[in-house]
């Protein structure tokens, strides 16, 4: 018991836990929009651009955060503009813009040696070095994002679902895009020191993708993804302390593990759901909608009138029993 509670005695661990919770929730909620737009790698790209921007800002004696946020925001807008014409797909635009800016950062670092140390945290995440200033920054970004998503939920949902139609209906899709890019840039900078540039993509994508498997409702997906992100952040960090492994990596591994479990559950549920294929019973081959049980017994969904007389009734009898078992799962 004592070993389980041991890490909570340290302030650095409690700070890290708060950071993981907030960054997890933040990435979870933003990730929903990214995943549904089919732009999953924008987070990966922008975090690299932000890193390049941070180095650039440092070189110019500007603030680390300011350089990173401005660059990520600028990169997001540039990606949007590049991919609008249709000739350059978003994935290519992300690759070009963000890698170029990242390369600029790397080039600058390699010229001035003494940099190397201080940017390692940004690359791989250093959740246990979180200061209370960091916590305030992350908290502020979380609040701004949550309030923004709440107030602009409707136009954002519409333009995420169908941009062109939304524009026709009079939704200011361009202004929304700019606003979203800004929030995304802020979130990425908030997450950068926690999970690391290299792991941000996972923090953004995994909770949303997991939530998508669990629901067909947008609002529930948004809530689930936020909660999942926070949960994975906290439990991953806690595990990383006990396994003495890198925190960003452990958090991502936890997320991936939960994704796999949900995927298995989803697959099982689909198999149990009504479907149709050719099969045999009572010596007759036929196809009709049914659900599966473990031993391939099945429940008939066809109305009794359509099923062969006798057979139908028999199968129906078996079905009610199975239905009860199915519901208990």
């Amino acid at each position, binding site marked *: 018991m004592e070993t389980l509670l041991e890490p909570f005695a340290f302030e650095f661990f409690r700070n890290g836990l708060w950071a993981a919770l907030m960054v997890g929730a933040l990435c979870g909620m933003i990730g929903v929009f990214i995943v549904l737009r089919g732009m999953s790698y924008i987070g990966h790209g922008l975090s690299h651009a932000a890193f390049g921007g941070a180095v650039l800002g440092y070189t110019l004696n500007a603030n680390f955060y300011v350089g990173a946020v401005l660059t990520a925001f600028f990169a997001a807008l540039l990606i949007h503009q590049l991919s609008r*014409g249709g000739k350059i797909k978003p994935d290519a635009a992300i690759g070009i813009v963000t890698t170029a800016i990242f390369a600029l950062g790397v080039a600058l670092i390699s010229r001035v040696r003494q940099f190397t140390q201080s940017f390692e945290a940004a690359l791989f995440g250093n959740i246990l070095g979180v200061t209370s200033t960091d916590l305030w920054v992350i908290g502020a970004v979380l609040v701004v994002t949550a309030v923004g998503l*709440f107030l602009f*939920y409707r136009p954002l949902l*519409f333009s995420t679902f169908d941009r062109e139609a939304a524009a*026709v209906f009079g939704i200011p899709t361009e202004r929304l895009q700019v606003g979203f890019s800004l929030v995304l840039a802020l979130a990425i900078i908030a997450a950068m020191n926690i999970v690391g540039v290299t792991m941000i993509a996972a923090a953004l994508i995994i909770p949303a993708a997991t939530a998508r498997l669990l629901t*067909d409702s947008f609002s529930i997906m948004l809530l689930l993804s936020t909660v999942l992100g926070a949960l994975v952040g906290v439990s991953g960090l806690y595990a990383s302390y006990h396994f003495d492994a890198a925190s960003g990596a452990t958090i991502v591994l936890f997320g991936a593990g939960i994704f796999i479990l949900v995927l298995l559950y989803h697959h099982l549920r689909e198999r149990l759901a009504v479907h149709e294929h050719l099969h045999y019973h009572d010596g007759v081959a036929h196809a009709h909608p049914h659900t599966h049980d473990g031993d391939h017994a099945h429940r008939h969904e066809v109305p009794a009138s359509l099923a062969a007389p006798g057979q139908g009734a028999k199968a129906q009898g078996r079905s009610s029993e199975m239905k009860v078992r199915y519901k208990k799962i």
Partner: protein
Amino acid sequence: MAQPLIRLEDVSAGYRHRPVFTHLSLTLDEGRFAGIVGPTGSGKTTLLNTILGTIRPHAGRVLIEGRPPGRTRSGEVGYVPQLETVDWSFPVTVEQVILMGLYVNRRWLPWPSREEKRRVAAIAEELGIAACLHHHIRDVSGGQQQRAFLARALINRPRLLVLDEPTAGVDIKTQHDVLHLLEELNRQGITILITTHDLNTVAAHLPWVICFNQGIVAEGPPREVFTRENLAATYGGELAVFDHDGHLLIAHAPATHA
């Protein structure tokens, strides 16, 4: 009544530096139910998008009720996109799709008000999809999907309704259902503009047709417009026109297949 609802004056439009059509002038009177037909790539969608304001013309003027598109009263123009462009795996129900039509009205709360729910229920009832409001959009029939998007466009009671290929990708029965529905809406006073590939459906249902191929070849009632010459000018190949018991039928001229 007949004052133009849509007016295009000497419009050139297209993508980047390549115009799809140039110097196009077109008027559509209020109360019309018109279909744009033309071969694939002829610019039908481009024309619709120009009218809707999602493509800005390179030259010329587009006016909807005397105002440029995008400056119209919100909800005045209803739009139903081509169903093939819809992301069917997106997590929304039929009800949520219809609700989007109301997102043009400012409301800061994400969830629908009681009044909004009532309006969605009413329009769904009108279009016969009340029973599947809570189904995911992927899990309803093609006709119901078409109606869901139609309901989204109609919920603001638009004066102009624009549909891109409403007859594509659904079976012939559903096509007729949708067109009957549009006829009914037109009778209620809504001006309707659609694009389609189905000449026979146009001939049977639509009172007004625009033959389009990077410009207007001919426009008017199908009986006057669907002549061998006009169809040849629109489609290039030979199409035959038959009068079958008062129904206009268009088919490939047998000779072209020899």
